[in-house]
């Protein structure tokens, strides 16, 4: 076994382990941290496939931004694990049967027989001067410009939808109006009243 293969199996094992932990741990903060681990290991797998740009993007975008937001949200929510686990035991047998069947079929279809080195020869490694990012950029803005634009529109729709579903304009917003505060005069705030002295009763 070459060093690369050992590395692959180590990362793959960690990936499968952390992915199964994500759905099985009790504490949702732990689940997110395991998800971060899963992202890191898949980024490592991509690095080994010479997809450096994608690997770094995965770490920067998902681990750096998305997961941090996730952590924020999860920490603010009051999730009752007990109610979420209701019916877990009831659905477990069906779930296990479906999962086992899927794994069996996948083992038949995805394996040495169809995706072995004879059918899919390993790509020739590129030299040190090869830039993955440059190649991606060239393809993205030429051959794949149409899908790229559609992806951009999807993001726009996501923004529109998110704002439409969450924005609530409140009429009585209590914000400060600085110019008004600066321009205020004594007469606007204090009224001097002339009155006779009264005797305390």
């Amino acid at each position, binding site marked *: 076994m070459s060093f690369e293969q050992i590395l692959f199996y180590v990362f793959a094992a960690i990936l499968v382990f952390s992915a199964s932990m994500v759905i099985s741990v009790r504490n949702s903060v732990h689940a997110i941290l395991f998800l971060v681990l899963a992202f890191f290991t898949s980024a490592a797998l991509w690095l080994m496939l010479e997809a450096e740009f994608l690997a770094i993007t995965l770490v920067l975008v998902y681990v750096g931004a998305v997961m941090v937001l996730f952590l924020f949200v999860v920490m603010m929510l009051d999730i009752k694990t007990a109610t979420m686990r209701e019916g877990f035991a009831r659905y477990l047998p069906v779930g296990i049967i479906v999962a086992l069947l899927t794994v069996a079929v996948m083992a*038949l279809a995805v394996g040495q027989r169809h995706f072995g080195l004879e059918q899919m020869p390993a790509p020739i490694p590129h030299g040190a001067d090869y830039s993955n990012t440059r190649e991606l950029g060239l393809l993205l803005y030429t051959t794949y410009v149409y899908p790229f634009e559609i992806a951009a529109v999807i993001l726009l729709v996501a923004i529109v939808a998110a704002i439409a579903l969450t924005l609530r304009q409140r009429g009585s917003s209590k914000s400060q109006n600085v110019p008004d505060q600066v321009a205020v005069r004594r007469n606007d705030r204090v009224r001097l009243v002339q009155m006779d002295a009264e005797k305390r009763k």
Partner: protein
Amino acid sequence: MSFTMPDFMPALPEMFLLGMTCFILLLDLFLSERSRIVTYLLAQSTLLGALLLTVGLYEEGRALTFSDTFVIDPMGSVLKVFIYLATFLVFLYAKDYLRARNMFKGEFYILGLFGVLGMNVLVSAHSLLTIYLGLELLSLSMYAMVALQRDSLQASEAAMKYFVLGAMASALLLYGMSMLYGVTGSLDLGQINNSTAAMDGNSMVLAFALVFMVIGVAFKLGAVPFHMWLPDVYHGAPTAATLYLSSAPKLAAFAMMMRLLVDGMAGLQEQWEGMLILLAVLSLALGNVIAIAQTNLKRMLAYSAISHVGFLLLGVLSGTQAGYAAAMFYAIAYVIMGLGGFGMIVLMSRAGFEADNIEDFKGLNERSPWFALMMLILMFSMAGVPPFLGFWSKLAVIQAAIGVELVWLAAVAVVFSVIGAFYYLRVVKVMYFDKAEAGMPAISASLDLRVVLSTNSLAVLGLGLFPGGLLALCLAALA
């Protein structure tokens, strides 16, 4: 690397749609609540403009552009025209409904237009990548439209269910696509078709990929056993959103099935035929039988949509040009009828009253004989009574099934359509033979809604009397 500028002309309607939608999105910010009608008018004129562009670009034969990720062919153009028309009607029907519920906001129209763009991308897709992106663009807009009535618990629940199940279906579809890409080494549907035809049809991985893709398509169409979302979403969503979901996206889902199975995997026809037969029989049986038990009209129409999908699949699974044309005819006919059916619910509803129970149609004949007649036409047509449009579309798909010697399947379809006739006729019975409850106000919908809805229903009758034109159009589109 060499690169030639793609030909932008075939995608002109899409670019126009996108440009106008972004313009409306910006303009809507500066409109006051009272001048919101401008957004509506602009959205409608955008659809009409795109329609004119699509008709203007219509050509026999097919052309590819954008590095073969985009295809323009007669089938796509015809479907796009009907998508614009259906969405035009949806926007028109929904106007009063939205206004009465304080939902008359720009977002409904903007999301609707983005959805149309997604449908266009899907219809014109010639690559797994564009199929997926078009589907996501459409689905994302639809999820948001269902959730737009955010203070309604029912609508939020429907949106949540739709979103979670839809995301799962997308994941299954993507998994199938990744397998297909793994075996064929290409995302281009033309190349995939060549390599799957060259491979022996029994390849394990191909079958594996095919199963996942068929599941993805079946989910989007709402075929049994991937239909669970459909009644809940149709019922829970505001009727304006249900109108949208039940109309144009069906045409897009049909196009997606044609692109994936016929354009991409024609060589595997024997395999997907069996899968589609299973889906068709289950959809026909379950849709028609469960619809009988419904008291809510929206739910009933949802189950009826499931059974209509069964009929549509009959045409596709026959694997002949005539069968595809019949399925396309069926899809278009269903959209016209479905728009009318949900349109009637919108017509009957008013502020604070949904009119989505079958009981709400009690004695409609006394209150408004004209609209009772319109509903009668729609229900008869959906049941497949001659001479209405629904009869011809059912006849066409059943003929297609008999054409490939699936007589037993045709018999099953006929039996279930007879069973299905019961619940459509029950609506007619309620309208004509039950007494109206006292205190039901007269129909107070605006003039444009009444006129267009009447035209919609009369079109079902008219196209039923002269079905040749639409059928010839579908045949020509798939020739």
